[in-house]
């Protein structure tokens, strides 16, 4: 096994318990400057409200223990800084470090959302510049930067659609969602007060346009489309789809998760999209940080502008920028304040680095995906053969014959030094392997990935056990998720100081 693996893959076996297990009374990691006003007596002012003892169980450790603890934990993680994440629809691209630097500047990180707007012109200019850039990239007319993530962007988009239709007299009842859609789409439609009607994809994995024509009635508020689809395939008939919807007074919502295939090459606004969200933590390089924060701006056509959440950024006659909160048709707010500003700063820094050359990133992303596809076609089953854009979806049906499924292959990929691709999504491909390299991968990294996948396919044929019991080189093996779900242990408790990590 070791000879075939060309990438360094050993994970540090460092033992490290929970921070609470290192705790001991009297230790401190951080000291405050001394109090320069009289010490007030809380017992008197607060009475029964006073928490006289410290928080029970809170750790008491020193600074070096904090540094070592979290440093050791970090060594157990895979990360983009270490290598490729071929995760389809996640767009795990490089997180530029200058973005981190500028987000932390004094005068950027320090600003309070409620401070006077005359003292926030720098922040407002950043927001305005980002708005203009995203409108240019999407080909839309109006935008809100408020939503905290893609899912919240989807909700905002659907609320905008609802408000627009309500103003016309009928909010309608249903939202159409392809069976290939991301789970947030139907979950969001329900929160927005709509029924979900699933529309099956046709034999090439695309929206069934003839079926769509049948089911779009005046009860349908919108279709939620992802383009390219979650199969990585461009919906060629999107303009026609938009036409069918518009003819019945319905709107086209686009899930912008796959914008990494379009930025600089085509604009959703030109394709007939009425409203869409973007994932700044995908296409626009803001870091995933183990699960967030992200940002999900929503861009719309002019007709939906009156309904945007407040506050809306406006330019005053004197040239100053202001946040306007009084807008009678606004849907309200989806979160406090103006948005995940720190994330927006990072996205703008990314766009400024590329400028008009942003197309090059998109081209490299599509090049990488197609290069990988070419070298794995025939080795893995390709259920949908239309050209791929920035991601490609294989299935495990060839390997399944030996009892090896996509999850096993993914786990074995870890031994080869990679993070797994997206398994078991989209739902329309049973046993899916969804691969998106992004433009951040060099030819070398792509070749290593291809070699690894080819080696695993061979193992699946000749030595399936090694794949089915993978990973073999990580600090922990496959974990018991069944017991974790049957008898959840969701926190540490001081009474149960059983064996520490060995």
């Amino acid at each position: 096994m070791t000879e075939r693996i060309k990438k360094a893959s050993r994970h540090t076996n460092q033992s490290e318990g929970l921070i609470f297990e290192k705790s001991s009374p009297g230790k401190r990691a951080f000291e405050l400057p001394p109090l320069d006003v009289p010490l007030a007596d809380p017992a008197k002012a607060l009475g029964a409200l006073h928490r006289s003892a410290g928080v029970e169980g809170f750790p008491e450790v020193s600074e070096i223990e904090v540094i070592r603890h979290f440093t050791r934990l970090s060594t157990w993680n895979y990360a983009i800084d270490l290598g490729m994440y071929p995760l389809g629809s996640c767009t795990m691209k490089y997180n530029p470090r200058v973005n981190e630097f500028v987000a932390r500047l004094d005068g950027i990180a320090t600003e309070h959302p409620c401070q006077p707007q005359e003292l926030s012109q720098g922040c407002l200019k950043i927001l305005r510049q980002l708005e203009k850039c995203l409108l240019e990239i999407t080909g839309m007319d109006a935008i809100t930067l408020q939503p905290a993530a893609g899912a919240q962007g989807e909700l905002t988009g659907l609320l905008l659609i609802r408000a627009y239709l309500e103003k016309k007299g009928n909010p309608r009842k249903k939202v159409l969602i392809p069976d290939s859609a991301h789970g947030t789409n139907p979950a969001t439609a329900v929160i927005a007060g709509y029924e979900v009607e699933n529309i099956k994809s046709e034999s090439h994995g695309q929206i069934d346009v003839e079926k769509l024509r049948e089911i779009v009635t005046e009860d349908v508020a919108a279709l939620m489309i992802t383009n390219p689809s979650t199969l990585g395939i461009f919906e060629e008939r999107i303009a026609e789809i938009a036409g069918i919807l518009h003819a019945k007074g319905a709107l086209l919502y686009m899930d912008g998760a796959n914008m990494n295939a379009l930025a600089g090459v085509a604009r959703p606004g030109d394709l007939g999209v009425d409203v869409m969200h973007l994932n700044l933590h995908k296409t626009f390089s803001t870091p995933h940080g183990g699960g967030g924060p992200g940002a999900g701006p929503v861009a719309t056509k002019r007709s939906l502008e009156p309904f945007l959440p407040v506050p809306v950024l406006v330019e005053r006659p004197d040239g100053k920028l202001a946040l306007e909160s009084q807008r009678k048709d606004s849907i309200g707010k989806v979160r406090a304040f103006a948005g995940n500003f720190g994330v927006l700063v990072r996205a703008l820094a990314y766009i400024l680095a590329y400028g008009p050359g942003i197309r090059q990133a998109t081209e490299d992303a599509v090049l990488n995906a197609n290069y990988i596809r070419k070298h794995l076609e025939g080795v893995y089953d390709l259920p949908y053969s239309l050209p791929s854009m920035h991601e490609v979806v294989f299935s495990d049906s060839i390997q399944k014959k030996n009892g090896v499924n996509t999850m096993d292959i993914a786990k074995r990929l870890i031994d080869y030094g990679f993070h797994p691709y997206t398994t078991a999504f989209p739902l329309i491909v049973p046993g899916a392997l969804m691969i998106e390299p992004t433009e951040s991968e060099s030819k070398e990294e792509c070749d290593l990935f291809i070699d690894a996948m080819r080696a695993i396919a061979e193992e699946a044929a000749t030595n399936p056990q090694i794949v089915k019991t993978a990973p073999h080189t990580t600090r922990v093996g496959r974990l018991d998720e069944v017991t974790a779900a049957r008898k959840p242990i969701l926190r540490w408790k001081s009474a149960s100081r059983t064996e520490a990590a060995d």
Partner: protein
Amino acid sequence: MPYPEKYRYTKDHEWIRADGGVATIGITDYAQHELGDVVFVELPKPGAKIEAGKSFGTVESVKAVSEIFAPASGEVMEANAALNDAPEKINSDPHGAAWLIKIRLANPAELSALMDAAAYEAFIADKGKEASA
């Protein structure tokens, strides 16, 4: 696992055993096998009314949730409390100790439309053929 002769079966893999006006309902061995390790079951409370063909609860594995559809209509008399602490019984004894609910049948005649053991076994054998086609 053989399918008990006295039970009736639905296309959604539930079983029902009638004892006069009272019936016991569960899910089949085929269903538990498809689900994998069961981690949680959500069942209606006594007094709730269930309707034939409609969902009355869910069974969860780690990665999936399945609805359970009523083989017949009636009023829930009891839900199997043993499954709260030991949902894994559904995997080990789906036709016996891991019954889900007992109901008072609203319309016993509904059972005659369901499959008997032989028909159900043929039904799932066909499914097996489809899957490997």
